C-alpha cells in the first residue's frame, strides 16, 4: 500500500518530457518554427514548454490566446485575471502581460495559489516579486510574414534571483501568438538566447 502511494506521489510530481529534434515543428495550427538545436518539451495546461537545462533555469513557452482568454488560468471561478482582447495594440499586450504577472504574484506564501494555477508564461505563479517587473524596448518585429512586436523583460524571483526574458508575438485572426523565453540572468538566459533568436527568425505562418 505504501509503495503504491509513493509511486502515485512520484507520478503526480513528474512532468513528462519528450524530445524536440532540431527541425521544423508546428506550433498549433497557425505557425511553425525551426530550431537548430534539440530541446525537451513538456505540456503545461495545453502550452508547449521547451527547455534544455530545466524549466526553472530556462524555458521557451508558446502561448496562443483567443479573445477573452487569460494568460494564467485559475480554478477559482471569481479570480480577477486580466483578459486578452483581440483589438489590443502591442502596448496593450505588454500591459496585459505585466498585469497578468502582477495579478498572480500577490504575496510571499503562494501555496494556495500554486495549487490552483497553470503558469504558461514561464514563471511559476506567485514565485516572482511583482514590484520588480520591468519591461523595456517594445519594438516592431516581423513575425514571419505578419507584423509583430517584441519586448524585453526582467524581474526578481521571490528569493531574489534575477531573471531575464524576451517575448515575441503577433495578433493574427483575433489570436495572440506569443513566444516567451525566460531564464536566470546568470548564465542560463544567455546560454540559449541565440538559439531562441534563431527560432524567432524561423517563424512561418501557415494560414
Amino acid at each position: 500500500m505504501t509503495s503504491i502511494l509513493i509511486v502515485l506521489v512520484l507520478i503526480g510530481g513528474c512532468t513528462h518530457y519528450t524530445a524536440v529534434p532540431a527541425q521544423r515543428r508546428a506550433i498549433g495550427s497557425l505557425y511553425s518554427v525551426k530550431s537548430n538545436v534539440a530541446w525537451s518539451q513538456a505540456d503545461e495546461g495545453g502550452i508547449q514548454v521547451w527547455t534544455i537545462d530545466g524549466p526553472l533555469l530556462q524555458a521557451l513557452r508558446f502561448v496562443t490566446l483567443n479573445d477573452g482568454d487569460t494568460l494564467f488560468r485559475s480554478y477559482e471561478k471569481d479570480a480577477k485575471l486580466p483578459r486578452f482582447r483581440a483589438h489590443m495594440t502591442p502596448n496593450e499586450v505588454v500591459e496585459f502581460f505585466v498585469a497578468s504577472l502582477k495579478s498572480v504574484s500577490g504575496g510571499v506564501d503562494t501555496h494556495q495559489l500554486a495549487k490552483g494555477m497553470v503558469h504558461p508564461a514561464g514563471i511559476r505563479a506567485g514565485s516572482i516579486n511583482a514590484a520588480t517587473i520591468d519591461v523595456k524596448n517594445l519594438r516592431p518585429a516581423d513575425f514571419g510574414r505578419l507584423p509583430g512586436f517584441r519586448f524585453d523583460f526582467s524581474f526578481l524571483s521571490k528569493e531574489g534571483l534575477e531573471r531575464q526574458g524576451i517575448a515575441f508575438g503577433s495578433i493574427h485572426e483575433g489570436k495572440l501568438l506569443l513566444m516567451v523565453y525566460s531564464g536566470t540572468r546568470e548564465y542560463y538566459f544567455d546560454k540559449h538566447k541565440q538559439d531562441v533568436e534563431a527560432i524567432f527568425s524561423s517563424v512561418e505562418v501557415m494560414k
Partner: protein
Amino acid sequence: MNRCKISLFLLLFCAVCVSCATPRGTPGAMDDIQPSQRPDSSSDEAGLWMYMDRIENRLKTSGRVVSDPELNAYVRQIVCKLDPVHCADIRIYIVDTPHFNASMAPNGCMQVWTGLMVRAENEAQLAYVLGHEMAHYLRRHTLQQWRTVRNTSSALAFFSLATAAAGVGFVGSLAQLAALGAIFAYSRDQEREADDIGFEIMAKAGYEPVQASQIWGDLLAEEEAGGKLAKSVFFATHPTTPERIATLRDLADKTAKTRDSWTAGREEYLHATKPFRKEWLREEVHKGNPNGTLVFLNRLLKDQGDSAEVHFFLGELYRLRGEKDDCENACSEYQKALDLGNPPPELYRSLGVVCLRMGKTREACDSFEEYLKVNPDASDRQIIESYINRLR
C-alpha cells in the same frame, strides 16, 4: 483574624487589578498585553508568536515592503502618537499592494497596505484604522480566537487564514478568503471593542473624531458598488456593519464637544504620501475591480478637487474596462486632464490607443506624435513610430 482580613484585602486588591487590566470584557477576554511583554515560552501564545515571527521574516524579504525611510518614519510617528507606551514593541511594514488592509499580528508585526494609504483622506483616518488594529493587539484578540477554534476542525484553516490576513497570502484569492473569513474574523464583540479603543486613542491624540466613521463608510460604499468581486480583504476578516458605522458617528458627535480644536492632519498626510500616489493609483486601476475603483476615484475628485492625475486614471480605468461607451468616457476624462494642464506624459499614448480603437486615425496619430514629443527617450519609441507610419 488579622491574617484573615489581610487575605481578604489582598484578594479584593487582586480582583481590582484584574478588572483594571481588562476594562472591556468580551467573551474569553484576557489581560491586556503589557509593554515589552513576551509570552511564556511554554504557552500556546508563544507558539502563536513563533508562527507569526516566521511569517514576519518572510514578509521582510518579500520585496513588497516599501522601504522609503521618510514614509516609514511618518507612519511610525502616528503609531507612537496613538500609543507611546507600546510604540517600541510594534514593527511597521508598509506593504505595496493596492488592496485596502491593515493588520496586526499578535507578536507586534503591523502591516499597512498601500491600498489603505491611498484611500485615507487624511492622517486622522489612517490613525483610526491603525488604532483599531492596535486594539486587537492590546486586547490579544487573535489569541482569544485561536483558543476558540484550536479544538475544532477549523484549526488548520485558522492558520492558513491567519497567514492570508497577515498579508502574505495571495490577495487574488479574495473569494476564498471571504468564504472562509468567518473562521478567522474577529467576533462582533471584538470588533466593537476595537472600534471603541481605536476611537478612544485617536481622539485622545487629538484627531478629528468624525473621520473614524468616515473611512469605514467610504470603504463600505466602494465595496457595495463593486459587488461580490469587490469584497475587501479587510472586511473579510473585520466584518463591518452599518450599525457599527452609526455607533462611531454617534460617538464622534458626543466627543466633538469635549475639545475646542481637533486635527484631521490633511495637509501633512497629502504631503507625506504625494511622492507615491501616482504609482498607487496606477496599481489601483489595474486591480481588476473597475466599479469599486470608479467610486473611489470619483470620491477622490470630490475630496481633492479637480486633478489632472485623477482624471487621467479615470480615463485609464475606462480604457481598461472596455465596456460600452468606455472609449468615449476615457476620451472625456483624458480631455479633462489635458484642460487642467500638466497631465502625466503617458496620457498621450493612452489617448492615441483609444482613438485608434474608435477608428479616429488622425487624432490617434496626433496623440502618438505628441507622446513622442513629450517623451523623446521613450523606451517604446519604435513601436509608436510604427503606429504613426501605418496610420499616416
